[in-house]
Each structure stands twice: as structure tokens, then as C-alpha cells.
């Protein structure tokens, strides 16, 4: 009741200071955390690209004299059972741990959006069948499905990308289909007042700007999930195989040593995963706060 009064009161008087840009800037500054997170992502990508030049040691070179050493000045994050330098391995692993999630997320976004939009546009029994398939796929918890698929088709990098993408496709599919249905209804309603059916071109052209933001938000959040999935698959031995380094796989190597006190081998890769997923989640949340309500209001 009280808020209604306030709204009614200022509904017709435009504020002098409240331009769209001013309110955008206000919210941008409010989301300082997301800005920091975004910068960290850029930093991570740079590190991953420059990995071979940044890493202090060769990640695959064993050193029998420096086996299982705790963090020291020589090896900042310690060494593993073969004497390999942890820091170098973590830096090198960032390549795989960023690339695979990124490509799979992109793939899922493209495929899922396309199928979803087409299915929503077509309607009829095609749409129904697609939705039933999606329902069946979503009946499996995503990670469990990933396990099954990887066990079935093998764990090369391509396969891993495919598998993670497949488990993510339904989300984008549903999202785009919903947008498409909404869009189609609007266009058909408008067309009903004029003459003729809207062409698929008009519908798709209108669809793109409307769904751009939610897709970006979803994709950013999905990156975090993809990183976790890859790490978990590698941990149980279904993902990246040694001697290639990957954070989850490194944690697995260090697991049995946790109980004997070699904490650094599992801790640091885990922190790497945590930080990576965290920053993607923060950026995704920030993007959502910033862009979504405005886009909806258009």
C-alpha cells in the first residue's frame, strides 16, 4: 500500500537527474566486485596464454632430488611425488582448464540456442518431440550424464568438450525456445492486426537482441559449472589423463597424500578451481544485475 502511494505520486513527473545513463553508471559502480572479478578473468586468460613462458619450471620434468617438498622459496607451491614443480603445473593446467570449458560452453550455447529457437518457431509435433528429448536428458543429473558419456566414448579433449557441451545444451535450448515462443506470440498478435504472417526473418531479427543478455549471463555462469565438471571428471579418472596436467587430476594425485600431511598438492589446484569458478559466477551475477532488467524493459 505504502509503496503504491509513492509510485502513484511520482509516476507523471520526470526527474531531472535520472537519465538512463546516470542510473546505469550508478549500478555499475555498485557492482565493484564484479568489475574486479572481470579483471581477474582477463588476468587468468593472459596467464594461460603465456603459460609456457611464465612457468618457472618445466611442468613435466621430474626432479628426483626435490620430491614431495613443501612450499619453499625454490618451489613456491611445493613439488609432487615426482619432483615436478606445482606452480608450473598449475599454470600450465590453466590452459586446459580454461579452454575446454570455454569451447564446450560456446558449443552448447550455439547448438542449444539454434535448436531451441527453431523448435519454438516450428511448433507442432517437432517441438513436442524435441521437448520430450530434452526432458529425458534433463532427467539425468548433468554430472552423472557426463560420467556415463565419457565412459562410453572416451576421454580425449574433443570428447570431453563434446560431453560437457551436451549436458549443457538443454538449458540454452529451453531458454531460447521460451524466448522464441514469446516473440512469436508478439509478432503474430501484431500481424493479426495488419495483414499476413510474419516471416521467420522478422521473428529471428527481433529475437536476437532480446535474448542476448540472458544468454551471456547464462553462459558466464555455465563456465563455472563446466570448470567444475571437467575437474570432477578428471578427479575420478574419466577426464584429462596424466601426464597432461589439469587441476582436478592434480588434486586426485595429491589425495592419497593428504592423510600423510602433504597438504600442498591438493590445496593449490583446488584454490585455482575455486577462484576460477568464483570469478565467473561473480561476473555472471554482476552482468545479470546490470543488464537484465533494462533489457526486459525495452
Amino acid at each position, binding site marked *: 500500500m505504502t509503496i503504491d502511494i*509513492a509510485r502513484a505520486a511520482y509516476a*507523471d513527473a520526470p526527474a531531472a537527474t535520472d537519465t538512463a545513463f546516470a542510473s546505469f553508471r550508478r549500478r555499475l559502480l555498485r557492482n565493484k566486485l564484479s568489475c574486479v572479478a572481470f579483471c581477474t578473468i582477463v588476468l587468468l586468460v593472459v596467464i594461460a596464454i603465456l603459460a609456457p613462458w611464465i612457468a618457472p619450471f618445466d611442468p613435466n620434468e621430474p626432479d628426483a632430488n626435490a620430491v614431495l617438498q613443501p612450499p619453499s622459496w625454490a618451489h613456491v607451491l611445493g613439488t609432487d611425488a615426482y619432483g615436478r614443480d606445482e606452480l608450473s603445473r598449475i599454470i600450465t593446467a590453466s590452459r586446459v582448464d580454461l579452454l575446454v570449458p570455454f569451447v564446450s560452453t560456446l558449443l552448447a550455447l550455439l547448438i542449444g540456442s539454434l535448436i531451441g529457437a527453431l523448435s519454438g518457431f516450428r511448433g507442432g509435433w517437432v517441438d513436442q518431440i524435441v521437448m520430450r528429448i530434452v526432458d529425458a536428458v534433463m532427467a539425468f543429473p548433468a554430472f552423472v550424464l557426463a560420467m556415463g558419456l565419457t565412459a562410453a566414448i572416451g576421454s580425449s579433449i574433443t570428447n570431453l568438450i563434446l560431453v560437457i557441451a551436451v549436458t549443457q545444451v538443454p538449458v540454452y535450448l529451453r531458454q531460447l525456445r521460451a524466448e522464441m515462443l514469446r516473440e512469436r506470440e508478439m509478432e503474430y498478435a501484431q500481424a493479426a492486426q495488419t495483414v499476413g504472417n510474419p516471416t521467420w526473418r522478422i521473428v529471428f531479427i527481433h529475437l536476437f537482441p532480446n535474448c542476448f543478455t540472458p544468454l551471456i549471463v547464462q553462459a558466464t555462469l555455465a563456465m563455472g559449472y563446466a570448470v567444475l565438471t571437467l575437474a570432477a571428471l578428471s578427479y575420478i579418472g574419466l577426464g584429462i589423463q596424466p601426464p597432461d596436467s589439469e587441476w582436478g587430476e592434480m588434486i586426485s594425485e595429491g589425495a592419497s597424500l593428504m592423510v600423510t600431511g602433504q597438504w600442498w598438492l591438493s590445496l593449490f589446484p583446488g584454490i585455482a578451481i575455486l577462484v576460477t569458478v568464483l570469478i565467473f559466477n561473480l561476473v555472471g551475477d554482476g552482468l545479470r544485475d546490470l543488464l537484465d532488467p533494462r533489457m526486459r524493459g525495452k
Partner: protein
Amino acid sequence: MRNLLEVENLVVHFDTDGGLVEVLDDVNFTMRAGETLGLVGESGSGKSVSAIAVLGMIRRPGRILAGSIRFEGIDLLRLSEDEMRRYRGRRIAMIPQRYRTALNPVISAGRLISRLFEIHEGCSRAAASRRALELLDLVGVADPPRCMQQYPHQLSGGMCQRVMIAMALATSPRLLIADEPTTGLDVSIAARILELLRDLSKRTGTAILLITHDLGVVAQTCQRVAVMHAGQLVETAPVRELFRSPAHPYTRALVRSIPRIDVEVKLEPVPGTIPSLRHPPTGCRYRNRCPHAMEICQHDKPRQAAVGLDHEVSCFAFGEHCDAAA
């Protein structure tokens, strides 16, 4: 005889995203025990906020800047939250505006009423249930035992409103605030609800603050009327007096805008729109819509002046600056 309710110099502001909204500006009115006062105005005039203020429920982003609300002699604004809670639902009760959504959907109608007895009067469950049943009968529900078991989504609009009234009356409050009690109701049902309120007031001696934008409702049910415009109280008068000789230009415009069956009269809508409360006009807030606006209306706020028995108006056209009022 002491007044039941005395609202004096009430100022309420809201800090919204769009800026500061001055919702209530120096509002004054009183109520006597057992009387029915209609609080009238267009939407956005501050009627509901006044009611919420009486209940002590103004919360962030709203705040009370000044004034006092004396109920049975005690200033409610000075009370702590705990003390105020003892008034709510017990000595002062409100029937909210949207009565349909004001009923908790997962609790049965009977329980909604009976638990009030348990909480406010310490009744046993069985006794409370019995009293709820009686109350439903009192408010004119056709089949009280059945209604007790039903959930809000199963009740019609009229029944919801009756349940709401029953809840408000549960503890025999001295003051009942009814916020737009007839919105969304069928005309015949609305008439019955109003009749019910009148009856109950007479029977239980409860004073009713009836908030509405509909002068017709006021004419049917109230003894006195207070007219609000843009957060300012402009006129108070007994009902008959108000319709017979409205004083304030706004009231006159309102009365003129009512369609009449008996006489052919030219309908004149009230000129202009409610001014923005974020940048309200200085002085009298009606001056931009008023055909009689004077120089002084721009910078001074009009004070209350008596123009008849129990009839007060806030307008520079009356009182010391008495000008010819057409």
C-alpha cells in the same frame, strides 16, 4: 468528551530511488468515539499512508518527520515497537485495501480468525473457535461452519471481505480502519458490506475511519468527512454539510463531478491532475488547479479556519483573508 483519535501536524516523507516524496504535509484531523469518519481523496492523496501511520507501520523507506497521533490521549508515535504491537489488531484494527491477497493462502478462514483470540486474549483453542464462528455469523456469512474450514482461494470477494472484517473486529477494537472496503466488489455486495459496517459500528460502538475515493460510499456510511489532496488535508465537515455547502475549491469540484440521477447537471471533472509529491508546489498544493488561486497561496500554507459548525477548511479564501468565494 475527549477525542478518540487526534492526528496533529503529521509529516511523512518517503525516500525512494527516484527521490524524496513528501507524502503527508501537516495533516490534522480528529475522531470521536463511535463515529464514522470518511477520509476522501484521489489516489495518491495520502489517505492510506495516514491510516498506516496511525497503526505505527510506516517503515523504510518511509519516515515520520513530525507530528503526533494521540489515541485515547496517548501519543502512539512515542511508543516502542513492543508497546505499539499491543494496540495493533486489538485496540486499533485495519481492514487492508486488497483484502483478497491479505489473507494467508495456507491458513483456513476459521483459523485466521480464531488465532487472533488465542493471541490477543489468551483463549483456549476451542473457545477461540467458537467465538470465530459467532463472529462469522455476526458479519453475515451465510454458512459459518463451512466457511471456517475453507481456504481463502475458495472464498468469493464478498466473503473474503467479511472474513477480513471479522478478523478486524475479533478483539472489539475502539478504532477500525477500513481502506477502500468496497473496491472490486459487486455494487449490491458493496452496499451490503457498507450496511454491515454501519450496523457493527452502532452495535459495538467502534469508530470507523473509512478510506475511500468514492464520495458515494461516504454519503452512505459516514457521519463526518475529511477531504485530502496531495498530502494535505483541505476540509472536514459533517456529511450533509459537505455535500450541501462544500467550502474548499477542491471539495466543490469533487462534489460537482458526482453524477446525479434526480437532476440534470453538467458533469465537470476536477481540473488538472494531482501534483507530483516529489517536487510539490510550495504553499497550497491545490493552487495550480484552483480557479481562485491568489498570491499568498504560492508561498504560505493555508491554516484551518472554521466555516460552520464542526466544519473546517484549509484555504486562504476563508478565515482572515476572506475573499469572495464564488
